[in-house]
């Protein structure tokens, strides 16, 4: 492959994967833990988070959309007049997503 070496295909790939996860999985989770449980419509079943398959699922659910956020947010900020600092913005946002991934993995492992 010629052309400049750039990590943009990687970030875009993670963004896309995160977008898919967010589109299919996130709304129902907001309904359950953010609305239905607090309002008492559904039982609070936090003990299921300890199942290992559930932990793996939660890791994917939480980590991938962080890259989706990082990608869109840094572009949105630079579109709103921060073009001059696009590079540091990108480093900051993708860095935050990486950090979030590590933290999520650590929390889920130690449950």
């Amino acid at each position, binding site marked *: 492959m010629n052309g400049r070496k750039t990590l943009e295909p990687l970030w875009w790939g993670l963004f896309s994967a995160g*977008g*898919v996860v*967010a*589109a*299919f*999985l*996130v*709304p*129902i*989770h*907001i*309904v*359950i*833990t*953010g*609305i239905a*449980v*607090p*309002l008492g419509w*559904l*039982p*609070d*079943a*936090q*003990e*299921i*988070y*300890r*199942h290992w398959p*559930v932990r793996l699922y*939660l890791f994917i*659910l*939480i980590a991938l*959309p*962080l890259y*989706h*956020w990082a*990608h*869109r*947010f840094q*572009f*949105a900020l630079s*579109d*709103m*007049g921060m073009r001059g600092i696009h590079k540091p913005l990108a480093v900051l946002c993708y860095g935050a997503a990486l950090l*979030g991934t590590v*933290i*999520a993995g650590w*929390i*889920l492992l*130690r*449950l």
Partner: protein
Amino acid sequence: MMATRPDPAGLYHPAMPATWWLRKRSYFLFMLRELSSVFIAGFLVVLLLQIAQISSGEDARAAFSAMLRSPGWILFHGVALAFAVYHSVTWFYTTSIVMPLRVRGRELPRWLFTALNIGAWAGVSLVILILYLALPASA
């Protein structure tokens, strides 16, 4: 052949204001779509914090659950849900453009692809809900 260049001194360069996305409905909807990611990530951070409480003992866990019952947090989740649903619908539609399904060489109509995905999304959501209710019993 080089493109002919006009006298650069006479050119008028229009500047795009930082508020360009407020000037047209479609641009505004685009920006809402992009910013939906903030609410989705925000919700997931709250979810992660809630999960983290499990290993901090029963008191911490109950306190966090009580916090989520406050009207402010319910409102936050209502807004986040609206943005998340907007993300889902726009995501399915854009996917129909980016990776069209081909049936015998012909691209499936975009509305149909989108509708199929919305159906699959409803199915997945139902399965998650059922698992959420069924899993504790089997634990």
